């Protein structure tokens, strides 16, 4: 399933990001193919969201670069749909208004947007709720609207920041599979950030594992489970193997983090100084 040999849609190249003195991401390099789903996992606070924001052009890296379809990202690029952990729906807009946002904000009239928006609202299972406001919907339904909004712009690239993390377990299971189904119909180069290892394996063609302080790419795992995928893949031998490997790596990272924290801050900040001095 690797598409590294062709032309990647997203290329993250030696990306480094600092916040003040603190280096969050160091020398991150990986690619995402045009219809590939790449999961990003790592311990909490490892900069997964920051990485995603760099790809979406919402923040600029301090070193290295991100390019989409060969063009360097210096501002939010065209054709990038973003799905947010807390949905990011505008409470004063209806479902229709929210889903059509990416189109109308570019100057498309509401009338012209109707067919496409109708179709997507149907695709995510929200028919009949076009005129509802987000506060009238459950969390799962709100994220369906968030998904439809991202798909409405017919994105080449989808970036998803823990999109199912604030949903209950059953809704999450349901939406994971629906997401996979939708991505079969509308392929896009997809970056899927998650802190759930099972979710990373279920959704991803490949998995980028971030570890360390600052985070770097520890490994890129080829999941090697063919698409389309259904719930049954979680029982497969391959799924278990990949999941267990991820567990070991990510948990080891968490342990190291804890150990470092207990050694005291002095040593850690020394290391930071060395790194910034380099």
């Amino acid at each position, binding site marked *: 399933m690797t598409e590294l040999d062709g032309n990647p849609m997203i290329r993250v190249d030696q990306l480094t990001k600092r916040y003040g003195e603190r280096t969050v991401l160091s020398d991150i390099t990986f690619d995402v193919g045009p219809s590939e789903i790449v999961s990003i996992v790592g311990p909490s606070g490892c900069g997964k969201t920051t990485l995603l*924001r760099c790809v*979406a*052009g*919402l923040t600029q890296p301090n070193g290295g670069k991100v390019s989409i379809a060969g063009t360097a990202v210096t501002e*939010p690029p*065209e054709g*990038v749909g*973003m799905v*947010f952990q*807390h949905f*990011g729906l*505008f*409470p*004063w807009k209806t479902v229709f208004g929210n889903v059509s*946002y*990416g189109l109308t*904000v*570019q100057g498309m009239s509401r009338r012209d947007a109707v067919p496409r928006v109708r179709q997507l609202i149907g695709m995510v299972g929200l028919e009949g709720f076009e005129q509802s*406001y*987000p*506060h*009238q919907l459950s969390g799962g339904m709100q994220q369906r609207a968030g998904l439809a*909004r991202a798909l409405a*712009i017919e994105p080449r690239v989808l970036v998803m920041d823990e999109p199912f993390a604030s949903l209950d377990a059953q809704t999450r299971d349901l939406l994971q599979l629906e997401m996979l189904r939708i991505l079969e119909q509308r392929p896009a180069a997809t970056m899927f950030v998650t802190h759930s290892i099972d979710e990373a394996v279920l959704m991803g063609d490949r998995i980028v594992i971030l570890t360390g302080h600052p985070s770097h790419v520890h490994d890129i795992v080829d999941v090697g489970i063919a698409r389309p995928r259904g719930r049954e893949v979680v029982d497969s031998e391959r799924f278990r193997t990949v999941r267990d490997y991820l567990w070991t790596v990510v948990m080891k990272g968490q342990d190291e983090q804890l150990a470092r924290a207990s050694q005291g801050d002095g040593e850690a900040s020394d290391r930071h100084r060395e790194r910034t001095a380099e």
Partner: protein
Amino acid sequence: MSTGLASGRRVIGRLAGANGDAGGARAAASRRERTQVFLARLAAGLGILVLWQVCAMAFAPAYIARPTGILGQLPAVGGDQAFWSAAGSTLLAVVEGLAIAIVIGTVLGLVMGRMRDIDRALRLYVDSFYAMPIVALVPLLTVWFGYTPTARLAVIVMEAILPIVFSVAEGGRTLSAEFTDVARAYRAPWWRVWGGIALPASLPYLLAGIDLAIGRALVGAVVAEFIASLNGLGYYILFNVRSFRENDAMVALAVLVVFALAVRGLVGLFVRRGLPWYRAG
């Protein structure tokens, strides 16, 4: 009739996913509560009027205002051309001043709320302006603008604009970063971020500001009329009190109160009807 209403409420309760009987019981309880509130208000209002009447009759000279006197003067005041001219003049000026204050105050508030450098530069002066009694400026304004309705309008705008600026700036400052992220990620042009995100997100704050501004605007109008002797309810009150016609003055005062309550009621209605997302959120 009442059972039909109750069953209708039950249907709505079921549609909303609530237990029908519980919904009906809740509706009945809230109806009972509304009746209780109404009765309590009526009792308190009558009590105050009776106390006022008794005290005025027992201790005060005949020209001091009292409920029966005000009631008796109502037809005469209502038929008085001068009264309606005064009321129209003051209330129109207040509406006009509020409108100007809302437009300028919203723009200024959003700019201060969204642009930190401008907030840093202006905040001290806006704070000082807010702390200052604007009515102290009225003598100056009557020199600058003359003894004209323009001077009154200036006072009203200055009174009304400050709570609006403060409130909208607060709304702009607390605008969720997630909303602006969404707007940027979907490549919204800057004017759509301001008009399409910052403005609607600050709308509840604007309405809270208007709620505070209405009282200040009326103070400004009345004081300006006192000082500049302009035709209006403020001057009508002053003139009648000085002519020992306190009951007439009280009618004008009542109009000011009713007007303030009506504007605040409209604001509340708009929040309930126009901003369902705000009440629920």
